[in-house]
């Protein structure tokens, strides 16, 4: 994938990727930084990713990985109090939904965002996350059941 192609993919997909990262639990600044890192990573590959099926999915997976690493570093080095201050209480329905999604295991969050925010198929999600298609299906079912239990069926 050439640099200019990456830029077009990145610009087209940025809103979905950003929202996807927020949905799996990233804060806005974390999501921005993680996407920047993923984009630079993609450019640095310099044509190594020729057979990439869904570059937007690849960007998401790499950004999610960067975000998790950064979060772990923050937890180690940042004072606990400051991190706590940055957590906001749910103030509306959509925030409440995001908060419930954030309580799901990371794998389920990644599957939900890949499938329903990035619009990846089950096969594409399985390939990008390096898991079996059956695992994608199972994670989806389990997440749906948990969210129905917590949020109700009528949402």
């Amino acid at each position, binding site marked *: *994938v050439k*640099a*200019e*192609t990456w*830029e*077009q*993919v*990145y*610009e*087209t997909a*940025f*809103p*979905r990727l*950003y*929202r*996807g990262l*927020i*949905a799996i639990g990233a804060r*806005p600044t974390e999501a*921005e930084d993680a*996407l*920047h*890192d993923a*984009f*630079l990573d993609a*450019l640095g590959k310099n044509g190594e990713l*020729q*057979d*990439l*099926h*869904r*570059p937007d999915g690849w960007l998401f997976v790499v950004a999610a990985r960067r975000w998790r690493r950064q979060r772990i570093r923050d937890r180690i080095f940042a004072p606990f109090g400051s991190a706590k201050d940055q957590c906001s209480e749910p103030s*509306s*329905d*959509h*925030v409440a*939904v*995001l908060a419930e*999604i954030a309580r799901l295991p990371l794998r389920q969050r990644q599957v*939900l*965002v890949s*499938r*329903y*925010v*990035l*619009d990846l*198929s089950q*096969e*594409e999600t399985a390939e990008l996350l390096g898991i079996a298609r059956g695992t994608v299906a199972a994670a*989806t*079912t389990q*997440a*749906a059941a948990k*969210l*129905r239990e917590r*949020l109700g*069926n009528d*949402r």
Partner: protein
Amino acid sequence: MNDERYLTLLLDDAVAAVEVPPRERWLPRRTRRAGIGLGSAFGLVAAALALVIVGVFIGQQRESPVGTQPTASPLATATVAATPTPSAKAVETPVPANESEGWSLVRASIPQDVTVLRPRWLPERYAADSVVVEYAHNVGGWRYRVGYGTGNRTVLFALGSVNSARPNSTETLTMRGVSVTISTTSDWPAIQAIWDDVGGTYSIQSTDLTRDELIRIVESLQPVAGS
């Protein structure tokens, strides 16, 4: 409500309200500061591409002036000639191309019995655009998506399922002999048209088209002929 629909609605709703940072913050600061580095490189590439597009566009004016052509007649009209492409090959990663080459690439990647629909009219603001063939392949059925514009000025033509926020308003019109659903959302896409035709479910999604422009585009669609 099955799990698929439940999760689609739930996620659409939840992420739609997430505010995306302003566009100037999308690219990494490191590349923005890179002097003659990446940002300038993209600028040079864009300038070169623009020159090519202008040349191609001037050439195309003689046969299909996008943006100035009157509304085309329905599906029964002649198919649009496509530049032959040597071999059929799925498009798995986005490919920027000029308009004719882009549609030819899609046509060459999709079986002949599946209709590929290309617009013969677009608003003037899209007239000089190249396209990006995002994909054209068989993943759970034949699918393609071709994009014009960028960022806040985007229109995408697709076959196969696409992502959409929950519609705020919906209307159904009969165009080109089929029932077309036009809807608006508060997120992506701002407006869209969806219908079933030979080959599957087709859609046009955009950030900035007006309802009248969208209708005119749908009416202008013509199948791309094979080589």
